[in-house]
């Protein structure tokens, strides 16, 4: 059942008085990395001392390496001392895996397998295990291109399972889906958009029941939803932000109702980022001040920079800058205050993984498995490459930072990089 939301124009939410925080945190430990791009979806991690150089070949600064089954372009998440990784395998890509490793030792703690109930076809570079799982701190929500959503507790016990293509026939496509779920309050939200059928569903974390769902544009879209911790004057709830090819929608989390619709020609691969402002990959980067702009101007970009063209990785926002890696493997830094491109730094290669920022160091892993460690200048000067580290395998999943380590997965391996 779809619930068609009532669209409320920006002027009608004047009294809503959004108070948007700079990050959204589910009920996870601060040291956790509970979802795609980490806490708040900001790609910013905390670690006291990550190494800038390591060697897979001789084990230098490699705390451990673990084998993974099949293939996967999802990112690892870290919850309560466990690293959770999804994979898919089999000649028809229909075997789904969830593996949990001890973050300290790398020991495989448990491994669960399932059969896909939906489409398992995907592009040769991708995998059924493309969406990064999410966690509310007590449960793991593993989502797959086949629209299978599996909830497990942290010990690997099966809590519930939804085959969403059974509920939404025609969903998914033969290229594969990759939108990662997000936990908002007590629901996990999944976004699945393709020509055959498109939906967003908010599913009760505890029961697995659908709280509400939305019809979405019938077009392919691989972007992930994000949540913004927000406060209405009425019911003080987080806001769900959904991106599609033609717009960005802000929605109530309790019923999916549209609060604001921003028309923008958005990218359908690169996901938007929130940090005080919404940074949308749309004809470059468009920045929207949905918090404090004039009441009639919330849907107008406060900055539009066509020279900041992101490739597949999402933008990262920190220190008054927005960082994007373009299709040519060049890291671009845009100054939010000056509204210009401050500098460019050629890294090299093609990137799928979104870079992550720890302190003043950005870790950028290209698809060939080379990780560039870039030092960012606190005064806005051009960043510089401190080190280039080879993993020696294709890497498409975004890394995680937690437990004083950098967790990186290829199709076949998971590494913890730590001193």
């Amino acid at each position, binding site marked *: 059942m779809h619930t068609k939301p009532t669209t409320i124009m920006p002027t009608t939410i004047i009294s809503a008085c959004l108070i948007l925080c700079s990050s959204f945190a589910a009920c996870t430990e601060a040291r956790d990395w509970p979802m795609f791009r980490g806490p708040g979806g900001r790609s910013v991690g905390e670690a006291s001392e990550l190494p800038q150089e390591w060697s897979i070949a001789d084990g230098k600064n490699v705390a451990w390496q673990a084998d993974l089954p099949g293939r996967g372009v999802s990112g690892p998440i870290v919850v309560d001392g466990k690293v959770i990784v999804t994979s898919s395998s089999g000649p028809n890509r229909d075997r789904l895996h969830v593996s949990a490793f001890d973050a300290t030792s790398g020991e495989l703690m448990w491994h669960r397998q399932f*059969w896909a109930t939906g489409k398992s*076809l995907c592009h040769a570079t991708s995998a059924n295990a493309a969406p990064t799982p999410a966690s509310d701190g007590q449960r793991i929500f593993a989502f797959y291109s086949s629209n299978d959503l599996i909830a497990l507790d942290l010990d690997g*016990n099966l809590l519930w399972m939804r*085959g969403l293509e059974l509920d939404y026939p025609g969903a998914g496509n*033969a290229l594969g889906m990759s939108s990662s779920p997000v936990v908002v309050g007590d629901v996990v939200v999944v976004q699945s958009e393709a*020509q055959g059928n498109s939906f967003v569903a908010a599913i009760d974390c505890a*029961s697995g029941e659908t709280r509400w769902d939305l019809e979405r544009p019938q077009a392919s879209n691989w972007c992930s939803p994000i949540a913004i911790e927000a406060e209405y004057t009425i019911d003080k709830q987080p806001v769900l932000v959904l991106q599609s090819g033609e717009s960005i929608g802000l929605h109530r989390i309790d019923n999916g109702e549209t609060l604001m619709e921003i028309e923008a020609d958005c990218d359908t691969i690169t996901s938007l980022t929130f940090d005080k402002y919404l940074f949308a990959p749309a004809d470059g980067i468009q920045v929207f001040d949905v918090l404090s702009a004039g009441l009639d101007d919330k849907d107008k970009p406060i900055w539009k920079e066509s020279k900041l063209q992101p490739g597949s990785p999402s933008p990262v926002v920190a220190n008054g800058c927005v960082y994007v890696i373009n299709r040519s493997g060049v890291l671009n830094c845009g100054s939010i205050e000056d509204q210009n491109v401050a500098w460019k730094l050629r890294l090299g290669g093609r990137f799928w993984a979104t870079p992550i920022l720890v302190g003043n160091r950005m870790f950028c892993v290209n698809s060939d498995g080379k990780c560039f460690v870039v030092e960012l200048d606190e005064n806005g000067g051009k960043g510089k490459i401190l080190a280039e580290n080879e993993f020696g395998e294709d890497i498409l999943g975004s890394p995680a930072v937690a437990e004083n380590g950098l967790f990186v997965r290829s199709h076949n391996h998971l590494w913890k990089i730590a001193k």
Partner: protein
Amino acid sequence: MLRPIECFRCLMYLAFLAIANNLSAATDSALDGKLEQLVEAVAEGDQSTSSKRWMAIVDDATSEDLVAILTAMNSAQNVGPLAENWIRAAVDAVAERELRGSGGLPTAALEAFVLAEDQHPRARRVAYEWLLKVDEPAAARLLPQMLDDVSLEMRYDAIGSLLTEADEATDEETKLQKYQRAFASARDKTQFQQAADALKTLGQTPDMAGQFGFLKNWKVVGPFDNTDREGFDNAYLSPNSIDLAAEYSGKHGPVVWKDAVAELDDFDDLGMVDFNAALVEEKSVLGYALTTFVSSKAQSVECRYESKLATKLWINGEEVAVKNVYHSGGGFDQYIVPCQFKAGANAILIKVCQNEQTQPWTKPWEFRLRITDSLGGAVQQASAQLAK
């Protein structure tokens, strides 16, 4: 006279029956109907109760209960793939814990279960994978018997092993026999190609399209207008009464049925019917393709087809598939449509719509279609006389 391998299978199956009977008595008390209750809860869509029952099974079961849990996959399959997954997850949770605790699993019971062809193919595969964790040599023992297994995962591994043997064989006759065997039994496209390529290097001319069941000879008509993708729902001809001598009103004038032959040589495009070549290379158009499949009897088959374009499919005038999707990827057996064939001639009609996109990768206007059994093996046509 039974061959040694058949004797071995008989013995293993008898052992399985004995073990299963013993386990059944044991597990009846240990699991106390919990497996049936779990399947019931899943069938009712009650996730919370399903989880509670699942945990009760996992808590109570020991390694001696694994076969009973695996056997529950038979009733789970009647409920659907979600129920199968609940059962599978229970097997994995129990086996993982027991293996970690005691270091062992009931190998004889698992091996017998793998060989029990009346058990659910997926359950047999799960049993096989756990067996290998404690008895890796079991693969070499079991796989040679599974070249035609109904579990496609077992068959995949068996064919893979056979192809390796063929690659490593030193005499040409042995190679030839093994590759021919793999070619006949493979259901996976990559393995099929590997066998076909090897046979070609040995001077053979394998009928790749025929072995796969691709339909080779078609009649096509078009182009019809698909501006703004509106042609998808426009009926330019009646699927129930097709006259091959008829003239239709096409996008640019009258059009008539023409012959088109599927690709038979290039493996990547094997079975593909190319409208661009048969009609005209144009955007915002659509075409129809028609063929006849002569079935030896009334039977259930699968119509498996692939197209990156919007399609509709009719069998004997009945619409059986509607896919309004353009350029969102394709893939081998992209669509699997269960169909009922009558004895004699069956008309297969497909409508393939090209849209307005102009990127180079949107140029192909094509499809391929094969008729198979439920395991993907080609259903062969009866003699043409039956069609009359």
